[in-house]
């Protein structure tokens, strides 16, 4: 077992005990959380993919050890932001609730035997919004992956740029793009897995700059939020609009992969990339 996971897991326990039962938001089935976890947080009745914590995601994706990158990069409060609450208080609440220090965990681990740079966003921390720390950790991850010539897989889940950090948050789109470009132009392989939801600044930057883009079933993916579009056009949108299946049909993404098959699919993708690379190295 990786060193850091049990420790994170232990911290997570009380929260899980407090909510032993979960209700499926799709079919209203009441589910025992342990069964839900065993089924990879997919409703056994209707197949609804629950939003996952980054820690759980790493746990079901990585074999063995995971060496975290950028864990010591923590949010500041450059705008001394206050709306209905102080930004600092919101961050503290999210830390408490999610047991995370920010909305992404990055690091290096193995997927199906392939050493891979891995980033996992978590919607439970500030709605997965990208502020400086998310941008910085993603950039650090890609820089490390470039140095080590590793493939990179990033799981996205984000409401967009983090407004509480103002323009410094918007500039993280530029920062992550710079890192992706440098990484890819060097002949490396980037895969993104878009999970529910992936919108705004994250979808308009690294999420859609990958070599292969996969998505989980029914994940909501788009640039503008559904509400904004409905307000603009003054009509209700069809249910399947902006879903992963909709994007697949429109040709925006490569594949929709059920969570149960995701690790196997990532392993196959990493295998193709490795095959290509060894051929390049041999020539």
């Amino acid at each position, binding site marked *: 077992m990786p060193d*850091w996971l049990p420790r994170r897991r232990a911290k997570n326990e009380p929260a899980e005990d407090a909510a032993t039962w979960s209700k499926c938001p799709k079919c209203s089935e009441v589910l025992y959380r342990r069964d839900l976890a065993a089924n990879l947080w997919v409703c056994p009745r209707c197949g609804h993919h629950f939003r996952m914590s980054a820690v759980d995601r790493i746990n079901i994706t990585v074999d063995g050890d995971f060496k975290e990158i950028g864990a010591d990069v923590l949010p500041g409060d450059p*705008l001394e932001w206050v709306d209905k609450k102080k930004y600092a208080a919101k961050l503290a609440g999210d830390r408490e609730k999610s047991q995370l220090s920010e909305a992404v965990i990055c*690091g290096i681990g193995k997927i199906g035997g392939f050493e891979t740079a891995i980033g996992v966003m978590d919607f439970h921390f500030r709605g997965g919004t990208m502020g400086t720390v998310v941008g910085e950790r993603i950039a650090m991850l890609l820089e490390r992956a470039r140095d080590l010539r590793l493939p990179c897989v990033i799981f996205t889940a984000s409401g967009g*740029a983090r*407004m*509480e950090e103002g323009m410094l948050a918007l500039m993280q789109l530029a920062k992550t793009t*710079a890192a992706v470009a440098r990484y890819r132009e060097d002949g490396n392989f980037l895969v993104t897995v878009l999970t529910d939801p992936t919108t705004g600044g994250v979808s308009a930057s690294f999420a859609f700059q990958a070599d292969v883009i996969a998505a989980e079933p029914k994940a909501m993916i*788009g640039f503008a939020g559904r509400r*904004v579009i409905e307000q603009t056009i003054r009509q209700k949108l069809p249910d399947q609009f*902006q879903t992963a299946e909709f994007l697949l049909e429109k040709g925006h993404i490569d594949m929709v992969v059920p969570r149960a098959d995701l690790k196997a699919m990532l392993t196959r993708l990493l295998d193709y990339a490795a095959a290509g690379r060894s051929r390049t190295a041999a020539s």
Partner: protein
Amino acid sequence: MNLIVERERGLLELEKRIAELREANAAQSLDLSSEIRALEEKYSQIQREIFGSMTPWQKVHMARHPNRPTASDYIAEFAQFDELHGDRHFRDDHAIVGGFAKLGERAVMVIAQQRGRDTKENLRRNFGMPSPEGYRKVQRLAHLASHLGLPIVTFVDTKGADPGIGSEERAQSEAIAACLYEFTIARVPIVATVIGEGGSGGALALSIADRIIMLEHSYYSVASPEGCAAILWSDASKAEEAAARLKLTAQDLLQFGIADEIVPEPTGGAHRDPAGTISRVLKNISDALGELSSLPAAQLKEARYQKYRRIGAWQTERLETVKTGP
């Protein structure tokens, strides 16, 4: 209603009155000069009151002023401009204008967001909100510029990317993401000027640049003040407060190191002296291109990388729970 239009109404009345008196004064033997002087005094006093220190919210309105010079007004002052159309896939988006141009003697690629000046033109230009095909035209022109070795000059002026059904169906996210990528890898100098509104990712798509110039009363924001207020306060009427908190003025962005320089506007805003404002902006763009053009492509790209790599504010701290970090 635009706040600035409202506030300047009285001034415009006074201006008219002064002009009338001047005319009367010239035509008649009657001496009205003291009356004129008094009015002029009053005029400049009101002007100072209104425009002396504008709040961020007033600046947002100034940036949206219907008479504010738009991108085509700037492009018209280039020595030459040959427009290139379309994204080669779907259609020509009129919210984006671009093509070969000469700024003085220097050949450049100019790429701009273009809003309309009246309702009819705004409908044609979608209020300056580009669709994916617009952003694909941007990519195409940026790529061509890089291919030919022509510097890129952009003008940013948009509320944001178009948020419609068609735009989502044609992958607005991917279109913007690919613009960011194209500007990032471009081997040529890029100078971006925010002339009005810099609305979020839709504006960023034209402003990954080696030099960012902002007009004194332009703004550039992660979200529109109205949108931010609706989301974070659940109350769109808090837009004025959001505008102040978002730190979106040119002066704020200069402090953050995001904007590199600010071009001053005449009292009352750029629309009170379009010709003067435009010539000052073009001079600054020219000077910036002059400095950047001497740098080899590799050095230019490295500097661009480092510039964006540095932006942000965070703190570092060793977490007790994480010991395996390399």
